[in-house]
C-alpha cells in the first residue's frame, strides 16, 4: 500500500512538473507567435510606407521636371503626333 502511495505521489509530482513545463512552453510559443504577427504587421505597414514613398517619387511634378530637364523631352502636340487608325493596326498581324 505504501509503495502504491509513493508511486502515485511521484507520478503526481512528475505530472505537475510536466504541466509547468507545458504551460511555460505554451506561453513562450504564444509570445513568439505574437511577435511574429507583430513583425508581419510592421512589415506590412513598412510596405505601405514604401509604396507611398514610391508614389511620392513618381508625382506628376517630379516626372515632368525630370522629363524636361534630364531627358530634354517636350510636350507632345497634335502637330508632332501621328494618329494611327485601328484598322491599320489589325492589318499588321497578317
Amino acid at each position, binding site marked *: 500500500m505504501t509503495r502504491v502511495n509513493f508511486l502515485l505521489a511521484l507520478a503526481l509530482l512528475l505530472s505537475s512538473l510536466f504541466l509547468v513545463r507545458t504551460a511555460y512552453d505554451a*506561453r513562450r510559443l504564444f509570445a513568439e507567435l505574437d511577435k511574429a504577427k507583430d513583425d508581419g504587421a510592421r512589415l506590412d505597414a513598412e510596405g*505601405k510606407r514604401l509604396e507611398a514613398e514610391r508614389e511620392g517619387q513618381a508625382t506628376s511634378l517630379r516626372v515632368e521636371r525630370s522629363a524636361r530637364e534630364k531627358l530634354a523631352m517636350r510636350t507632345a502636340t497634335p502637330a508632332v503626333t501621328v494618329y494611327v487608325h485601328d484598322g491599320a493596326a489589325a492589318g499588321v498581324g497578317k
Partner: protein
Amino acid sequence: MIGRRKRGAAARSVSYSSSPLLASKTPPWRSKFLVALVGLGSCVLLGRAVHIQIVGNQFYLDQGEKRYAHELELPALRGRITDRHGALLATSVSVPSIWAIPKDVQASKEQRRQLARLLVVAPAELEKKLADPNARFAWLKRQVDETVWQQVQALGIKGIYETREYRRKYPEGESAAHLVGFTDVEDHGQEGIELAFQTELQGRDGSRTVVKDRLGRVVEAIGEQVDASNGQDIGLAIDAKVQFFAYQRVRDAVAEHRAKAGSVVVLDVQTGEVLALANYPSFNPADRRNLTGKQLRNRALTDTFEPGSTIKPFIAAWAMETGRVTPTTLIQTAPGSVTIGSSTIHDAHPHGTLTVAEVIQKSSNVGAVKMAMQMQPREMWELFTQVGFGQKPQLQFPGAVTGRLRPYKSWRPIEQATMSYGYGMSTSLFQLAHAYTVFARDGEVMPVSMLGQAAPQAGIHVLSPATARAVREMLRLAAGPGGTAPKAQTIGYSVGGKTGTARKQEGKAYTSDQYRAWFVGMAPIDRPRIVVAVMIDEPGNGMYFGGDVAAPVFSQVVQQTLRTLGVPPDLDVKPQIVATAVQESF
C-alpha cells in the same frame, strides 16, 4: 526544605479532580448553543461560497481578469484616396509617436538639449512636459519621422518610448490639396474629400484581450479577438495628371499676371465627372503650419462672383428655344446703349446691327438685354435654376456654395435686364462650368460627381439639341478670330467658349481698379468631351480681360487634357514631324 516547597506549590494549584466547577452539571443549552453557532458559521461560509461561485461568479471572474488582462487596441487603417487610374492621392503610413513616463526619465542636461533639438520643440516646453514627477504619461511629439525616433533611441535616455500611429501622406502635395483635404492628428477628416467621406474612410478599430508577462510580452489571448475593419478606399474621378497640369497652369498664370488667385475646373461632359479642380494659392497638406484662410479656400466652389457675359449664351439659347429669334435674326444695338426705366445700359464698344450669333461673339450687352426683355422673369428664373444657378451643386463635397439668384417675383425690369448680361446674380466657378454642360451635352445638364462613374448618367433636359448646337457654334465664333477670346484656340482641337471680365464688388460699389477675369468653354466643339472653366482673380499688371488672362490657361488645359484622355484632334494640323520612320518589314 524540599518537602515544604512541594507542599506550598500544591496549596497554590487547583486540584482538578476535586474542582467544584467540574462537579457542577453543565446546563444542556450551552452545548446546544455552541453547536448552533458552529452550524450557523458553516451556513454563512456555505452561503458566501455559493455567492462567490454561483451567484456573483461572473463579477469575481471579471474582477480577477482585470488584474492580469490587458486590452490591446487593433487600430484600423484609414482608407486611401486614389485618382481615376489608382494613383495615390492620400494614404496612411505607420509612424512613431514618442512619449515618456516623466518620473522615469533620467537625462543629463546635454541629453535633454539634444532631445529638444531632435523633436524640434523649445527646450523650455520639453522641460515643462517632463517636470511633473508624478505624471505617468506625456506625449513628447506625435507622428515623427522614422529617422527621428532612431536618433532619439540613440540618445539612450531611460523612460522614453514610442508607439505606432498612422499619419496621412499626400503624394500629389499642393496640386490636389483643396480637393483631397487633410486630417487632424486624430485621423479625422477636416477638409475636402477627407471630410466628405470621413465615415467611409475611417474604418473601425478592433481589440484583443491578452495576458502579459513580467517583461510585457503577450503570453496568452483571452476571449475572442475583434478584428479591425479597415476604412474603404475612395476612388475619385480626378485624373492626377490633369489636376496637376491645371494647377501648374493656373499657378503660372497667377504669377505671370501678378494676380491674387486663380481656379480651374475641368468636367468630363460624357460622364459628369470632375476631372480636375485646382486653386492657387494652395498649401502643402504635409506641412500645415502658418496656414492662412486664403490658402485654404477652395475658391472654385466657395467664391461667388457675378457671372457677367458668360450668362449671355443662356439668354440667346432660351430666345432661340422659344422661337423668339434664330441665330441670324438681326438686333439693333446702335447707339450702343439702351434705357430701361431710369437706367441706361451701355456696350463697351457700339456695334450697330448684329445677328444673334454676333451678339454673343461680340458680347453685346444691349443685344442681350433686348432679347431678355422679350421674356417673362419667370422664364429666365426657371432657365437659370434648371442649369444650376442659385442651387447648391449636388456634390459630395463640403463647402460648395449656392450663389445668389433672387426669386423672380421681386425682380424689377432693370434687374431683369442686368441679369441678362450676368449682373445682379452670383455663382461659383464650379456652378458656371456645370451650367455650360447644357450646351456641351446637346441640351442636357449633367449631374456632376467627384467619384468615378461606372456608366454615363442621365441629364436633365433643358434645351433642344438643335438649340444647344446653335449656341456651340456661337461659342466657337466667340473664341475665334473676331471674337473676344482668340487666345483660347488650341492646336488640333476646335474650341468654343465665352469670356467674362468684371470689376470686383467691394461692399455695395464696384472698385475701379480690381478685376476678375474668367473663361468658360468646351472642346472639341462639334462633339464636346470636356468643359473647362478658368478664373483669375485681380490680375495686376495691366491686362485684365478674360480673353487675355484666362483664355490662354483654358487653351493649355484643354490641349493637355484631351491629349491625356486620348481624344483624336478634330482640326487638321500642319505636321511638324521632321523625320518619318521607315516602316519595318517582317
